[in-house]
């Protein structure tokens, strides 16, 4: 016998034992309805209502959190915008400073070049003047030495070659010269 056959036989047995009644008991139904209502009320007040309150509270918290997150997001965006603006301004100022520094450096460089050029020209001029002075001094020394040499040599020659008679005549001439001068 298969399983369906056994189940049909068992069901037929139960129907025979109940004797042909529908089984409706009004008092039992009312009692069960009251029980149901009581249980439902108990469940509503002690389970569903606290759970709903907790859910509302959590919903509020979640909502607050979401609102806070939104605010934070907008603040973050604002902050990012401000930061970007600050960065842009700082970048512009930095560029301006760099440009000014470059301009100043260029001006300073030009000035230094001019100064150095002037100094170099002065140095060259002074060196030329020093060379000229050295040359003049050397020429003067040479002239002086030559003149002294000529005078010395001439004096020696004259000292040796002049006779006493010539000296006497020169002396007379010198006396006449002195006598004639005032």
């Amino acid at each position, binding site marked *: 016998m298969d399983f369906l056959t056994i189940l049909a036989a068992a069901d037929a047995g139960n129907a025979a034992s109940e004797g042909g009644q529908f089984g409706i008991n009004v008092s039992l139904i009312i009692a069960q309805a009251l029980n149901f209502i009581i249980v439902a009320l108990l469940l509503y007040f002690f389970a569903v209502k606290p759970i709903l309150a907790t859910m509302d509270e959590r919903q509020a918290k979640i909502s607050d959190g979401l609102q806070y997150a939104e605010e934070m997001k907008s603040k973050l965006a604002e902050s990012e915008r401000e930061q970007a603006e600050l960065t842009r301004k700082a970048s512009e100022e930095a560029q301006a400073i760099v440009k000014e520094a470059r301009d100043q450096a260029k001006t300073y460089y030009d000035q230094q070049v001019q100064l150095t050029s002037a100094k170099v020209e002065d140095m060259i001029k002074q060196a030329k003047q020093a060379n000229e002075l050295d040359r003049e001094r050397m020429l003067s020394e040479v002239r002086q030495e030559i003149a002294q040499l000529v005078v010395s040599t001439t004096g020696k020659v004259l000292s040796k070659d002049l006779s006493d008679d010539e000296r006497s005549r*020169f002396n*007379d001439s010198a006396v006449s010269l002195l006598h004639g001068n005032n």
Partner: protein
Amino acid sequence: MNIQPEALATKLLQLSKEDGLVTSAAVEKVLSGLRELNLRNSKAVLNAYLSLVKKAIREQTVTIEYAGSLTPEALKTIIAKYEEQYARKLEVVTQETPDLIAGVRVSVADDVYDASVAGRLQTLASQVQ
């Protein structure tokens, strides 16, 4: 008696001259007189007097340098010339200086009159320089 040393020295210098020239004899007399006076500031007076005597001797002395020989007539001519020029009597010092080569050089105080060969050569040398 408090006399200024310079003023006293000037008066002493006048006493030290004989015939317009400072002589050693006159100076000796002045010095002996100073010793007798025994002045309080005798050192200052003597210093001032010494300075004035040195200056007077330099101014009254004509130094005649020459090379070779110089005749007495030439010497007289030179003395007369400079006594006339300076309008005072001069004491003559002659000196033979072979470095002059030939010629004469006359010095009176700080004035020098050079008519020597060496002097002319030196003038030539300075002109060349």
